């Protein structure tokens, strides 16, 4: 270390006693795999979101009061627009760097959601949710939900035509809650749609409440990973139940993370130059009673939008005291079911296979039939119903009437996931039979094929590099 760093470290060490804990942290071993970077990608996207978000918040005005735009874009020069939309116009056309940072912010949001979802898929597929990590898994599902909320409130803030249409539909979704829907909608919106309170409230959530929840939840999420140690892929000769195999924090993980952060930042900037991620100047502000054709939310909300398009007409009264309608089932119940299924799965798997003890080594989903079926069924369903949200674009591109697409998706969402789940269940069962293996109930049993036959001996422990007790 250079003299400067040495002096700096010594100064801190004399006051905070950093040397010993610092060494322990620096030597901490992290299992190494590209798919373990997905969570980090989500984290770094969040960092970019906060940094660009602070910049944008300096200029954004959370209000729909009419103001005059006096900037350089001739399409709106001298016209009166909602203040939120006007501030976005100024950011996009009159403030240096404004357009770039708007686009980076939007793209980083896309990346955050994509990385979070893929990370969740990886966790489910590899079984990293098994005891003792169920709490962290549930926390992760909470993080995905907060992410959805942050994304939705965020792209609604510019109050453009597309955003306003989404806000209207959100209002209708609140309204669809049986018995209490109208009170709920009025409570969230501050009155009957559209109100002047919606944008300020979304702003508070998007800029204060949700980031605070995210930072808190991410911190706890990471602390739990640090305390329980990361899971790892099985490796021959290593008892993964008792030992972590990987690379130390310093320098390997640090270098990887630093490279990843910079590289992601660079790709975000490059993609923002090439693709107009959040440009809304031409589509104009939201005017109640107006709508533009080709109206969709951002991609991570496609599954809700697709459900709304595909779910057939439904409206019935229960005992005359409450109404159940299509938007409630499609927009609230179905997503709720998906999240419930995801949250419940670790406990179901444990019960079904009679699992015992703690698990630290990842398991192959192709050899755990229930998990493979669950993953294909649930994620397949979400994928198909997300595709249903693009049915008007598909219709325009292929020349096939949209009514055909709607029927195709109606059938596909109901028929394809169970069939897919069944097929992979059968494949997985047959694969187990062919290899003569079963779903192990304890991790020691699962580790056996990777180690020498018999329980771990002192010699095999020494060979794998360490004693069982520290």
């Amino acid at each position, binding site marked *: 270390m250079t003299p400067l760093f040495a002096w700096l470290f010594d100064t801190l060490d004399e006051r905070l006693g950093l040397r010993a804990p610092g060494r322990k942290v620096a*030597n901490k*071993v992290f299992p190494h795999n590209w798919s373990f970077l997905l969570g980090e990608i989500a984290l770094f996207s969040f960092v970019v979101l906060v940094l660009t978000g602070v910049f944008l918040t300096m200029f954004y005005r959370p209000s729909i009061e009419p103001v005059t735009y006096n900037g350089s874009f001739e399409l709106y020069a001298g016209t009166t627009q909602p203040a939120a939309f006007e501030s976005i116009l100024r950011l996009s056309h009159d403030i*240096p760097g404004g357009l*770039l940072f708007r686009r980076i912010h939007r793209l980083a949001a896309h990346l955050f959601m994509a990385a979070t979802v893929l990370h969740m898929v990886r966790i489910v597929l590899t079984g990293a949710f098994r005891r003792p990590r169920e709490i962290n898994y549930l926390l992760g599902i909470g993080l995905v939900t907060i992410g959805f909320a942050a994304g939705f409130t965020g792209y609604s803030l510019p109050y453009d035509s597309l955003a306003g*249409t989404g806000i*209207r539909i959100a209002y*209708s*979704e609140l*309204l*669809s809650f049986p018995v209490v*829907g109208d*009170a709920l909608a*009025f*409570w969230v919106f*501050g009155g*009957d749609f*559209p109100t002047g309170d919606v944008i300020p409230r979304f702003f508070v959530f998007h800029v204060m409440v949700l980031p605070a929840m995210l930072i808190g939840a991410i911190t706890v999420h990471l602390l739990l990973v640090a305390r329980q140690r990361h899971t790892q892929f099985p490796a021959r000769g*290593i008892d993964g*139940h*008792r*030992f*972590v*195999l990987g*690379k*130390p924090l310093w*320098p390997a993980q*640090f*270098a990887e993370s*630093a490279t990843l952060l*910079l*590289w992601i930042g*660079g790709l975000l*900037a*490059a993609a923002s*130059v090439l693709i107009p991620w959040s440009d809304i100047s031409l589509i104009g502000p939201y005017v*109640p*009673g*107006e709508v533009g*054709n080709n*109206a969709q939310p951002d991609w991570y909300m496609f599954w809700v939008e697709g459900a*709304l*398009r*595909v*779910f057939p*007409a439904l*409206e019935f*009264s229960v005992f005359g005291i*409450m*109404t159940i*309608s*299509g*938007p409630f089932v*499609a927009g609230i119940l179905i997503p709720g079911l998906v999240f419930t299924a995801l949250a419940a799965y670790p406990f179901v798997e444990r019960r079904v296979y009679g699992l015992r003890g703690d698990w630290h080594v990842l398991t192959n989903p192709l050899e755990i039939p229930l998990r493979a079926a669950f993953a294909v069924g649930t994620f397949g369903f979400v994928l198909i119903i997300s595709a249903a949200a693009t*049915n*008007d674009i598909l219709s325009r591109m292929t020349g096939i009437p949209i009514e055909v697409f*709607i029927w195709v998706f109606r059938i596909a969402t109901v028929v394809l996931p169970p069939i897919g789940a069944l097929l992979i269940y059968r494949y997985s069962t047959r694969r187990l039979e062919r290899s003569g293996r079963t779903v192990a109930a304890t991790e020691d049993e699962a580790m056996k094929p990777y180690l020498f036959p018999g329980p771990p001996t002192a010699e095999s422990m020494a060979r794998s*590099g*360490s*004693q069982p007790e*520290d």
Partner: protein
Amino acid sequence: MTAPSNDGLEVIERTDPPPSQINDSIVALTAVGAAISGIVFAVTLLLGGPVLLYGSAMAAALLLLAVAVRRYFTAKYPDITAVEPRVPPAAGAGEEPITDVESVNPRRSFLGWLLAGAAGVLGLSLAAPVASLGPSPGDTLRRTRWAPGTRLVTGDGTPVRPSDVAAGGIATIWPEGDIGHERSSVVLIRLNVEPQTPTNQAWVVDDVVAYSKVCTHAGCPVALYRERDNALFCPCHQSTFDPSRGSVPTFGPAARGLPQLPMGTDDDGYLVALGDFEAHVGPALPRGM
């Protein structure tokens, strides 16, 4: 295969990187390139350059620095694979007391529960101000701004005559004095076929009929009119309505027809409402009001 322990780190495998002039040059070049790109970014941004320029400079700076960092570290440090033991959860969990000071008077447990309950009740009641976030809906959702005698006007306030709507035409209409009130928005259509039940013929003026514009599915404005086959189409979730038959839904997720506006003319020949809609407007109401 095992290397000697590395002061607290149990190393399994270690690969030392060979010294490489090429790598060192690459680190130097990319690092300097990153710095220059960073300066270019700052200068072009401050001078008001185009997004293409400062955006590319920013991208180049970050990407180059990433490469520099990676190559610096891979050249400077060995590639180490290590193991460390997973420390199992503390033994005796559940048997050891959590604290060392025990309670003296065990009968206080009832009071403890009472205290906890009271704190809970207080906490909940402190949430009461949250209720003032929104007004009570009452029957606001059952009514619109249309009343007997309200004139139909266009977006700029001009009253409408039936002849103003072209054959096969559609117009967006508002109640006079409440232009822009979303739930009162109405579409006016001149049908080119005979209206049939459940269209209320008494409310059709010279083949011109008025329906609520708010979709009964999720509330988007229903404003696409296919003149050829007489269909109102909602762009959001593709609900289709037949305006010649009371706007009943013919396809898509809407379950109810668009309410028809009771419409007539006043003495000057302008279109006026005869009253509010008879059914509620827009998506389903939670208690079927």
